Structure formats: C-alpha cells, structure tokens
C-alpha cells in the first residue's frame, strides 16, 4: 500500500499509523515528547517527520552537506504529502545585494491583490479556521476639515481650555486604520490605503528577542525564519512594532492543488503548527533575480523592489528623487521598506 495515498479514509489513517509504528525501526523514534507529538498528530502524513528532521541543527549552523540533506529530506516528504514534485531551494544570499522595497502610498488603490498573490505564492494557511496573511492593507480615512465639523463650543467644554480642533470628532487624519474593509469598488472616495508587511529592519527587534536564534538577518538584509527551529514562544510577535509576524495556531490548511511547489527553505515551504512566519521578500524568487509576488501583481505599479547597493536600480532612484519616509522611525529599527509620494 502506498503510504501517502491521496484519498485517505479513516481506515487508511489507522493502518498507516500502524505502519508507522511497525516501521519504527526504520524511523529512529524520536524522544518521548517528540514521539508523543508526532503520534498525536491528526494527519498521518506528518508521521513522516523523521528523527533526523526533528533533531536537526539550526539551519544557519549546518554545514553545506547537512543543509543539502535537510533539503532533500523535505523535498521527499513534501512531494509525497502534496502529490507533486516539490523543490526546496537553499540558495544563500548573493554577494553585493541588499534588498529594499518602496511603496507609493499615493498610488495604492487598496485592491489587496498583493495580499492574495502573497498567500498563493507563499503557501500561507487559508480557510475559515486559520487564515494567515502576511500583508495588511489599512484603510485610512482622508482628512477633512469642514465648516460643519468645527466645534463651536471650544474644547473640551468643561475644562475651559481651547486648543483648537475638536477632540471628540475625527478631524483630520485618525490614527486608527482598519484592514477589514469590504467595499464594492476600490479606491473608495474618502479613503486612502496603507499596506504594511515585514519591514526587514536593519536592526530588527524580533531577531534580538528570539531566544533560540531561529530568526536572523541574512547578509542580503532579509530577516528569515528557520521553521524547524522555532519553539513558538512568540517573543518576536510581541517585539515587532509593525505587527508583521503571524503564528500558526493550528495545523496550517494548505490544499494540495493550491500548493506552490517552488519553495525556499527559509521562505515559502509548507509550515507546521506552532511556529511563527512572516514576509520574506519572496526569498525563493528574489534570490533568483525575480520580483516578489506582490510587486508583480500590483495593478497600479505602486510597489518597487530592488538592490539598494546598486546605484542604478529603480529603488535607489525612488529613494533619491521622491518624498520618502519610514514607519515608526522613532524606534530605531531602520526598516528597508520605504513609503513614498510623488
């Protein structure tokens, strides 16, 4: 019986679990906790997580051979699990490259095609139970100062000190954007849009607080995560001022037919429950000279991507010629994600 039958009934599940137990000699059975974890897993395919995978080193500390082994293990497992040829790339960062990103907030129309493209490209969990999106598009209200909004009585009445404006009605731009908007048409008349994602900080607070260094900054400036090493403590989620990190609360739901088989070890390969993930500047694409999925899909060309160290790159021109700002500069995280206006 093929162990990774695509149409798994309940009986199959039981037999394959028994198979797993019988062939426990082949798989060196994991430690007590590890074994309990694997056996209690509802998906039998996960029983394939081997002792070697469970006890492998942190990716960054592996030798090249060990990396290759880890990658091959994953390729075999994923190919079986998803019923297609899955490749796991291990391309390291390229010399002389520092990736940067720029977003034209004047142009963004809030269509959120970037969000959807990102989910499809990067194998995020989808469905009602657990939907993970790396990009958030905030809908911000446009500032308006109209005669009607002006408070005639001063501010605030009983305190007796007039400081101008009106503290109780939204005058000007309110700081709270929201990302659950569902308009019939975009862009909406009285709104502008503010996409956020991982800023790939030069001084990332998430890296500093990680107790096991599962997340680190690669030389090309991408902050990556070794999903096999993450212990799920969520310190990084607490430390991220951009709310860019997502946690796999349950087993991710990634339909076989929608799974993107071109993956990178540090990027879009399928994740497991209990680990943190986030935007990786589509490391599987950008280290091969391609654009990120969100840049590619943006219908208005609001998104720019490129090598900050290359003086002729588009991103450098944007930084040189446009009005640029970074988000929450006061926190000294030095994002490599820039917002600009024409």
């Amino acid at each position, binding site marked *: 019986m093929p162990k990774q039958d695509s149409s798994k009934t309940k009986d199959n599940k039981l037999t394959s679990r028994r198979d797993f137990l019988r062939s426990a000699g082949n798989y060196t059975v994991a*430690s007590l*906790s*590890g074994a*309990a*974890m694997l056996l*209690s*897993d*509802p998906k039998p395919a996960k029983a394939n997580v081997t002792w070697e995978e*469970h006890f492998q080193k*942190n990716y960054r*500390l592996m030798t090249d051979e060990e990396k290759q082994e880890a990658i091959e293990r994953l390729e075999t497992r994923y190919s079986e699990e998803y019923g297609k040829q899955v490749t796991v790339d291990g391309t390291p960062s390229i010399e002389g490259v520092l990736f940067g990103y720029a977003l034209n907030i004047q142009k963004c129309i809030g269509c959120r095609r970037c969000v959807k493209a990102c989910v499809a490209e990067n194998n995020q969990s989808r469905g009602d*139970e*657990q939907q993970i999106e790396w990009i*958030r598009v*905030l809908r911000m209200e446009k500032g308006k100062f109209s005669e009607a909004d002006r408070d005639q009585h001063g501010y605030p009445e009983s305190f007796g000190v007039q400081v101008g404006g009106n503290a109780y009605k939204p005058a000007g731009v309110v*700081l*709270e*954007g*929201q*990302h659950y908007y569902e308009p019939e048409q975009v862009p909406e008349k009285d709104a502008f849009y503010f996409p*956020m994602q991982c800023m790939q900080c030069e001084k990332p*607070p998430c890296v*500093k*607080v*990680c*107790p*096991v*260094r*599962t997340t680190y900054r690669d030389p090309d400036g991408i902050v990556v995560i070794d999903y096999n*090493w*993450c*212990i*799920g*403590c*969520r*310190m990084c*989620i*607490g*430390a*991220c*001022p*951009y*709310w860019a990190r*997502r*946690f*796999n*609360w*349950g*087993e991710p739901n990634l339909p076989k037919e929608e799974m993107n088989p071109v993956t990178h070890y540090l990027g879009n390969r399928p994740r497991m*429950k*209990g*680990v*943190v993930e986030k935007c990786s500047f589509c490391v599987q694409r950008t280290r091969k000279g391609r654009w990120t999925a969100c840049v590619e899909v943006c219908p208005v060309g609001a998104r720019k991507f490129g090598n900050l160290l290359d003086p002729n790159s588009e991103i450098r021109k944007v930084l040189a010629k446009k009005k640029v700002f970074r988000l929450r500069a006061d*926190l000294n995280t030095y994002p490599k994600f820039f917002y600009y206006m024409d």
Partner: protein
Amino acid sequence: MRFLQFVVDYLKAGFTGGILFWLWMLFLLFFIMLWGYGEYVQIANGMIVTNLNDQVSWGFYLANFVFMVGVAAAAVTVVFPAYVYKHKELHRIVVLGEMIAIAAVVMCLLFVIAHMGRPDRLWHLLPVIGIFNFPHAMLTWDVIVLNGYLLLNIIGGYYYLYKKYSGGEINKSFYLPVVYIAIVWALSIHTVTAFLINTMPARPMWFHSMMPIKFITTAFAAGPSLIIVVFLLVRRFTPMKIADEAFHLLSQIVVWCLGIALFLTMSEIVTELYPATEHSLGLQYLMFGHNGLNSLVPFFWTALSLMVGSFILLLIPRIRKNLTLLPFVCIAAFVGIWIEKGMGLMLPGVIPTPVGEFAEYTPSHIELMVVGGIWAIGFFLLTFMLKGAVAVLQGEVRYRTETSKQAVSEQQAEAAT
C-alpha cells in the same frame, strides 16, 4: 544510602495524613487530571484550542506566569529577615518559605511550557545542544534565573533538612553562601521577568522603567500574603509552632509594599492619562474600555479596590495583628494583585495592537483547565513538601541506624505487650 533513606522517609512523611489531607489531595488530583487533558488537546491540535490569536498572542498563561514569578521571588521576605536581620522566629521556619519558592517556580516553568507553540522543541533552548541566544534575548536570561533559583532553593532547603534529618552539623561555609546568593537571586528573577516584557517599545504600555520596581513591590505584597495564609494553615494543622511575631513582620512587609505599589500605580496613571498620548491607549482601555469594548474594566476596578481596601485595613494595627482577620485581608490583597498583574497587565499591553486594533480576549476552557491544573500541581507539591519539612523540623522523622531502629522496635513491642 543515608540520603536514599532521607528521600524515602521524606516521601512517607509527606504523604501521611488524615481524611482531610487525602480529601484535599484528591481534590487537587482532579484538577491535575484536567491539566493533563488540556495539555494533551493543546499539543495534539496546536494552540488553536486557546482563545489567543494574532492580535492577542500572549494571554492567560503568561499572565499567571508573571504573577507566580513574583510569588516565588517573595520567599525572600522570609529568608532575608531570617539571615540578614537574624529574626529568630523566621529563622526557625525559613525552610518553609523555600518550599513555597520551589512550588512557585515549578508552576512558572509549567506555565511557560503551556505557552510554547512547540514544547517538543524546548531542547533548542539548552546551551551546547541547542542555541542559547545569550546575552541578547531576555528570555534566555529568564531561563537562567528561574532554573538557577529553583536549584538554589532545592539545594538550600533540602541541604538544611537533610542535615537536620541525619543530625549532622551544617557546613556554614557551604550553606550561607547559598542562602545569600539566593536572596539576591530572588530579586533577579522578578526583575528579569519585568525586563522581558518591559523592553519592547512596540508595546507602549509596558515600555517604562517603572515596571521592574512595580513588579517587585507587588510581588512582595502578594507573596508574603500567601506565605501568611500558608503559615497559618501550617500552624493550624501541624504541630509546628510559628510565633505571632513572624506574622507581624510579614504583614508589615505586605502593607508597605502594597503602599508603594499603589503609589507607583498612581504615578503611572497620572503620567499616562494627563497627556493621554496614543501610547496610553492600553491603559485607557484597561480603565475605561474603548468604544464599548470593556471586558477588562470591571477587573481593573475590582483589583484596585481590593488592593486599596486591604492596604487601608492593614494600616490599622488592630486588624493587622489580629490573626483571625489577617488571612482574609491577605487573600484580598493576593487576589487583587493577581488580577492587576495578570490579566490587568498582560492584556492591555497587547491591546491595542501596533496597528491600533482592539481585540477582546477571554481564555478558552482549555486555557482555564491548564491554568487551574497548574495551580493544583503547585498546591499539591507545596502540601507534600511542607508536610515532609515540618516532620523533619519537628524531629518526627530522623535518621536511625540499625541498632537504634532495633531499640525503637523493641520499645514498641514492649509498649504493645
């Protein structure tokens, strides 16, 4: 050999008791089983069985963790006066304080494990086989200080008990350094825990330097409150004599630490609310709610009234020295601080999120089961350890050589005839 005998005798003494004792232990065992079930469900399905989400990714587990670290640290309120001020009455029962610390730290470690997304990978934290991100990550500091504190208390407490048991002299040049290091170490565990959450500018409500000192003062109010109640129970249910003076000193520690904690709370509220910048949204949400989202508001005001109420009551010497009333006031202070430092600190720290989103959170049944179970484990351990310790301190359990054993059994035989 003699040490093995100690372990066996200690275990025996710890699990000897009347019907009330066994009813209490069974009651705790019921909750411990719920804990086992809750942990199983959580490990099998992932943390999706909790009510945590991307907005509120830290909740009930960490809230209890933070509180219990304080209780563990507060054992120093017994050890410090005993050894530094040579307080006689406290010196006699200092071991009992250490037992409370051990139980509290064990609870802390269990809360952390419950909070982890991948407890099967905790070995990644171990130095050498894993990676220890030291000194960068605060969590590694916390791992060091918590485990170190556990070790210090086990060594200190059980070395003393073992010497008492075997009738040997205490080697002061070994024992006293352990005690003094443990005193300083106690402060470090709660300070580091405060640093853990206080060093994140992404969470403005926690991002102020008052946090560590406020942690310490609330801990030194909540901890001794629990210690007073536990000691009163020990006095009531065991032959151990604990003098009134010990309680008077502890209740004074509670009242002054509570007073300082309230002062710090007031300073924080004024500083945050007077300019009322966007950074005070968390505190505002805690105190007054936000656009109808106000599930935390009753908790905050309950906690505050409990703390203020017990502070005022404890200020009155007649109440503070009344050992029948005192435990109730102490329980009020304990519960007040548990709410204030647990849910009242953890949740508004992550609400609103960095993008300004307010998400209400209530623990799920699984979370309640796990947390209740860990508390039960703590009390189970504590009951057993205290019973054993009291038996040793009272001299009921003591090492007997073969000849003395014979003598005892002959005596018993004689008495029987």
